[in-house]
């Protein structure tokens, strides 16, 4: 713990200053304003019409919480995000383990393929998948012989397709990170376990998983954060929320409330609620980690 010796120096301040300025100005201040907007009646008339802003207290929140539409959107957001996280983790982890067991060439191919999928910008990825699954011109429909089938018509096939794109774009991060983590586990530990007569399954759960826990923690947290905030794919593929808004998620909803309906106050309230939910999920997870003895 040689680091502790330097506790008294003043250095961190100037090292942290640039970050503090940028984040303070462009993150904390807007967040404060977001909170502020959420308790105001702030619509187009206030922004450019010269009307005074009005403090409305919790009205935006009470109206939001009393709106059945909000609860529907919230529920689908949570379920969609959870499904994406689970699928991403399952695919990513499965392939990471697979990577440790295959020959060099297939391993190289798979990592290159994953890298490529990772590199594709969300906008391009969404448009490409839309074309692949296009009602009439899509290769998939023609392959399956279901020309004329509209994937975006049914709520669940639409969510499923968007989810597939999300998983496709985000499993590489999980795979690469976990693979790097697994490779970092000393071979001797595993060999020792094998000598003790532990089966593959037991050695996985009892040795690999505990060692990998910090890696898993990062991967899980990042996946939750990213998948909960999916915007581009939903916005582009379902054209802003799907048929009768059936594929709306919270942040698309917030964006629409704010910019299409000019209810800036209500849009801000949705944003605050979303942040709180993510915060709660992550804090619960961090706590569980800490209880199991991990350091942040």
């Amino acid at each position: 713990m040689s680091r502790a010796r330097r506790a008294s120096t003043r250095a961190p301040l100037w090292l942290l200053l640039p970050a503090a300025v940028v984040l303070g100005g462009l993150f904390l201040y807007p967040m404060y304003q977001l909170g502020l907007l959420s308790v105001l009646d702030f619509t187009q008339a206030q922004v450019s019409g010269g009307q005074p802003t009005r403090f409305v207290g919790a009205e935006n929140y009470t109206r939001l919480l009393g709106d059945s539409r909000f609860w529907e959107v919230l529920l689908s957001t949570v379920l969609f995000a959870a499904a994406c996280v689970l699928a991403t983790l399952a695919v990513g982890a499965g392939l990471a383990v697979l990577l440790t067991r295959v020959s060099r060439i297939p391993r190289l191919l798979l990592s290159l393929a994953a890298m490529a999928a990772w590199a594709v910008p969300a906008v391009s990825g969404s448009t490409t998948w839309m074309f692949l699954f296009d009602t009439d011109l899509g290769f998939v429909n023609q392959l399956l012989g279901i020309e004329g089938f509209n994937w975006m018509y049914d709520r669940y096939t639409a969510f499923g397709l968007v989810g597939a794109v999300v998983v496709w774009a985000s499993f590489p991060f999980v795979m690469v990170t976990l693979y790097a983590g697994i490779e970092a586990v000393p071979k001797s530990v595993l060999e020792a376990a094998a000598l003790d007569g532990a089966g593959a399954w037991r050695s996985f759960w009892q040795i690999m998983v505990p060692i990998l826990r910090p890696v898993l923690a990062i991967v899980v947290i990042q996946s939750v954060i990213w998948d909960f905030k999916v915007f581009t794919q939903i916005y582009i593929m379902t054209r802003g929320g799907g048929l009768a808004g059936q594929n709306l998620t919270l942040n698309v909803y917030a964006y629409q409330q704010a910019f299409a309906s000019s209810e800036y106050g209500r849009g801000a309230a949705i944003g605050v609620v979303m942040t709180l939910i993510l915060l709660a999920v992550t804090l619960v997870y961090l706590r569980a980690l800490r209880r199991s003895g991990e350091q942040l």
Partner: protein
Amino acid sequence: MRLRLAAAAALALTITACAPSTSAPAPGATDGGPRTGALKVWLFDEPNRAPKEAVVKEAVTEFTAAHPDTTVDVQYIAVDTRSERFKGAFNDPASAPDVVEYGNTDLPEYATAGGLADLGAVVGNWPEGADLAADAKASATYRGTLLGVPWYLGVRALYYRTDVLAELGLKPPATLAELTSTARAVRAAKPDMFGVAVGGKYTFGALPFVWANGGDITSIDSAPSRAGLTAYTALIAEDNCPPQNCADLTGGKTVELFASGKAAMGILGNFNRAAVDAGAAKGRYAVVPLPGLTAGSIAPAFAGGNNLGIMKNAQRPALAADFLTLLASRKYQARMYDAMGNLPTLKPASAEVVAKDPFVKPFVDTIGAGTRFVPLDPGWGKIDASAVLPTMIEKVATGKATVDEATTEAAKLIDEALTP
């Protein structure tokens, strides 16, 4: 109690004091702004934009020839996201364009937002301004202020394929009920074809059904409105236009369906003529007014149309006025009619068009039978931008809600938006 009130008031004060600054509608450049430089113009993107673009290019060439050292930067903005673009421009005076095309339904919202300049003086000084039809002028006036120059009128009527109906021995429908039966007959005989192209997002295709039954937007949950919607949504079904294909269609997509020959009928506007003539349906269609409930009657159409306006925050209002009056002149209104089928708003131009082209007759008849309009209220913009009516239709068309449920929900949202 008093203390608490005072505290709340103080809190409110401090909060409003540091809320994002609002920009009071600042008067634009009073001297007319620079006479040189780049003039920013926003026009609507459309299905098959090329003919419109060609006419605009011609006007730009004429304009830049007469105004040295100017360029005109024309952007075609997507209709379905126009609301965000316009609001962005209202919210940031520095980035506002100069001349804009906007739908007449958007007028109250934009007027309330304080985004458009008063064009009273511009039109007063414009020799052709006196030729503007009074009702067209009224559609660009909000609470006594003229905020636009009506550029063209748009009404919708029933396009039908003469060859298809003749082959099946069908006559163009004379009532709305007949429209449905004719559509089904076509689909039954030609399973690859849709009878009449309708869409869940096609509000102005659906509204005539509501109006013909005696309903209206402001009473969307009344029995007559529901009857109209029931008739319209019944068309989004396997026996005419299957929900899988049609539930999320916009008006533009129905144009494409009719133009490409996939639909035997379509409720299209006079301004869609160019798009239809660019497709397979060219030369094989005719137009009649959309019929009402009884034979011989006409379903009230939506009195659509677009205005040209100048942004209050325009950097070059004087140049903008010159360009606007050029684009709105008789010459270019006539050109736009030839290119797109847009009905002119200047009396001499429209008289010329009616005289030379029988195509406009059904549209003029429709206007003559009486048109309707959306609520003249700033809240309409919100109803439109948050897609209240399309959501309602889509819910019914996809079986997620009954007509009663969907209309009750929509009525609540409409009431909310319209109450000041």
